[in-house]
């Protein structure tokens, strides 16, 4: 299992990077990503079946649940705040500058 996992890691690291050098690179990487998702979906029922037969049962751990939901949500909020709102502000500033310049040029043309 360790060798197979290491091989998967190596392939995951090397193949997309190598194929990304090709001309249709974005297309290739999207295809590889979709292939990984499809492989995961194919293997998923086997694992779910195995878990279904597991004798071990545990109720939901609320601390773990809070961590699992809270941290990604916090990261998402920070991401939205920093990346999206930041880029919107930059775009807005850029628009204001363009409008200002066009207004100035129209004024000078009229004069």
């Amino acid at each position, binding site marked *: 299992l360790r060798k197979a*996992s290491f091989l998967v890691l190596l392939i995951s690291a090397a193949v*997309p990077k190598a194929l990304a050098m090709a001309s249709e690179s*974005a297309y290739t990487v*999207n295809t590889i990503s979709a292939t990984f998702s499809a492989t995961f979906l194919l293997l998923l029922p086997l*694992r779910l079946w195995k878990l279904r037969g*597991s004798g071990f049962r545990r109720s939901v751990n609320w601390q773990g649940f809070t*961590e699992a939901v809270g941290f*990604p949500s916090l*990261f998402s909020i920070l*991401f939205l705040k920093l990346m999206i709102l930041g880029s919107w502000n930059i775009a807005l500033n850029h628009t204001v500058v363009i409008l200002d310049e066009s207004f100035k040029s129209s004024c000078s043309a009229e004069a």
Partner: protein
Amino acid sequence: LLSIILLSYWTKASNLHAQQKLNFLASLFASQLAALGLGLLLLLEQQRSLKPSDLASLYLIASILCDAVYMSMPLENARQTSTSHPVFFRCFIHLALLVLESRTKHPAFGTVGKDQSPEELYGVLSRILFMWINPILLRGYKNVLVDKDLPSLSRDIKPEFTINAMLQIWSRRG
């Protein structure tokens, strides 16, 4: 769920070429199906397994690497400017999930799993990078290790198992 909503919104809002949009949508569709499956798998793994999920960890690593390669490509060649935000978001969420999933679960189980070896309780990343040995090394750094500090052996190298294997081989020789 948040990932699915935002990715769908961004794809609708983005101005991509038809071929590129089709390709991105196919990748997105597979990714969203996989995200739903991943949610179900992680929930069941939390409830019914003592160790982190190897399948989920490997999928998350592969997905993060693909996204990282996609984002590291030159913008003028890939024309992926409008899709870089959702891909970055997906990569970020997957990275957070990988970090959370790679953490060992056995402290949360109390006495359950105490008699199992750390190798059996840690995930695939910890086993590959031998991170499961770090708590023992840390304990040894702070105090002198005694017998009770040492973890249990894994099932396949326990004396009960090895002695039977050895006796079988010995009897075959005779």
